């Protein structure tokens, strides 16, 4: 939902007044972000047109493929750290061969989607908020509206479609790179052969871990897109406003990824 009308409110009275107003504004912005998400989903049907398909593929490249470099480095080192930390402890009990299971399960269930979500929130979410915010400030969004081109269909829908496809794929890639990194540490530092590492890794992980991880990543992709586009559209004042919108988009995406991640884990693994 795009708002352009300026707001004229008297300053809040006292601490409770300020807190109350923050709470009301928080609820209102959440509602607007939800409405933006629903409108983008309703516009997904236009993805069948050739122009929209081309735009979705372009967004998949810009936001997905171009993030591969940073994701690879973060994933490999996350796997290496996980393997090293668990391996050091397990070695005390001569159980270092079990690092395979520890790395695989951690990556599939939590670290894969979580790390992917955080990286995309920082790289992609900030870029989305900054781009849309700049478009608001330079009146490009207003120009689209006057041409009767729905900015949500034109700008948000392709990003939402691209992110809902790319985030699960990138999360799976992160998991595989993490497992690879763990295996490298196992072979070079802990004396665990690659075969033993992989046998152990595949024995303890099951398909549910993979599905839940992919589902989480899918949700994270939608959260990042919705929050970032909403913050971009809500940009108010020039370059400063774009900076603030970008910061709010990254912070809100990070927090939501953490909170939603916890509840998904609880829903699937704690009953």
């Amino acid at each position, binding site marked *: 939902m795009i708002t*352009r*009308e*300026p707001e*004229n409110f008297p300053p809040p009275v006292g601490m409770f007044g300020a807190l109350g107003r923050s709470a009301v504004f928080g609820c209102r912005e959440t509602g607007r972000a939800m409405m933006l998400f629903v409108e983008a989903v309703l516009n997904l049907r236009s993805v069948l047109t050739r122009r929209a398909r081309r735009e979705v593929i372009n967004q998949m490249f810009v936001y997905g493929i171009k993030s591969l470099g940073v994701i690879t480095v973060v994933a490999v080192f996350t796997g290496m750290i996980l393997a090293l930390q668990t391996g050091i402890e397990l070695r005390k009990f001569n159980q270092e061969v079990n690092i395979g299971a520890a790395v695989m399960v951690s990556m599939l269930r939590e670290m894969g989607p979580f790390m992917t979500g955080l990286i995309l929130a920082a790289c992609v979410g900030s870029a989305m908020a900054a781009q849309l915010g700049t478009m608001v400030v*330079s*009146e*490009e969004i207003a*120009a689209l509206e*006057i*041409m009767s081109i729905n900015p949500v269909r034109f700008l948000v829908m392709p990003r939402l479609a691209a992110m809902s496809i790319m985030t699960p794929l990138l999360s799976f890639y992160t998991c595989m790179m993490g497992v690879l990194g763990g295996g490298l540490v196992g072979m070079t530092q802990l004396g665990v052969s690659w075969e033993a590492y992989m046998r152990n890794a595949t024995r303890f992980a099951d398909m549910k871990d993979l599905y839940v991880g992919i589902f989480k990543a899918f949700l994270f992709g939608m959260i990042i897109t919705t929050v970032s586009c909403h913050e971009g559209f809500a940009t108010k004042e020039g370059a400063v406003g774009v900076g603030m919108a970008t910061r709010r988009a990254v912070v809100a995406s990070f927090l939501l990824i953490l909170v939603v991640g916890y509840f998904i884990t609880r829903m699937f693994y704690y009953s």
Partner: protein
Amino acid sequence: MIRFERVSKWLSGKFVLDNVDFEIRKGETFVIVGPSGVGKSVSLKHMVRLLTPDDGHVIVDGESISDASGDELARIRKRFGYLFQGGALLAWLSVAENVALPLREKTALTNDEILAKVHETLKLVGLENDGAKRPGEISGGMRKRAGLARAIITNPEIVLYDEPTSGLDPVTARTIDQLIESLRVKLGVTSVVVTHDLHSALTIGMRIAMLHGGHIVELCDPDKFVKSSRPEVRQFLEAQFITREGSWERNIT
């Protein structure tokens, strides 16, 4: 054609528009002048519902755009073209793609028809050799002309110009003035121009309105505007070295 009925708008702690009433006639070039921050661009934005009045209505051919919603709003907006101050071109598209955008998104024309129309419109604004360039690769004046091409490619009945000549060299500014005038003469387009540039206003305007303190303090033809005795108008004219005795001719072709 466009009528402001007791329109008021409160912005940044003051009434930028305070019970403003005026009417723009079909086929005329109506110019709104005034110092910075008096609500000229705000008035323009009310005409296409980028802003809504706190009080009053903006009527477009008998329909209140201030109260229109959804399809009705889209239908009324289709009658408008809008040239933004900075051109408002999409940065990742070329000039030609920007100009083609409304046709690609809102019409069923074939690719060849769109390309022909884009070439014709770019030629009209003198950018036929710059279609492949990105907005970041062209000058401010060229961006404005590209914005104008995009605004007029759908043959709108009404074109709104927000500071069309600001920041341009005098030669390019006069070229823009000629374009605005030729659109009126050749296509019968109704133009609403917001500007600080009194030379431009007096050249292309058929009627000039001056906004000051939230009110229209003068609304008349260019000759009467130059001779106006309103202190706000006199101050504005004299700041641009235009005297009551000076003669102004519509020497535009």
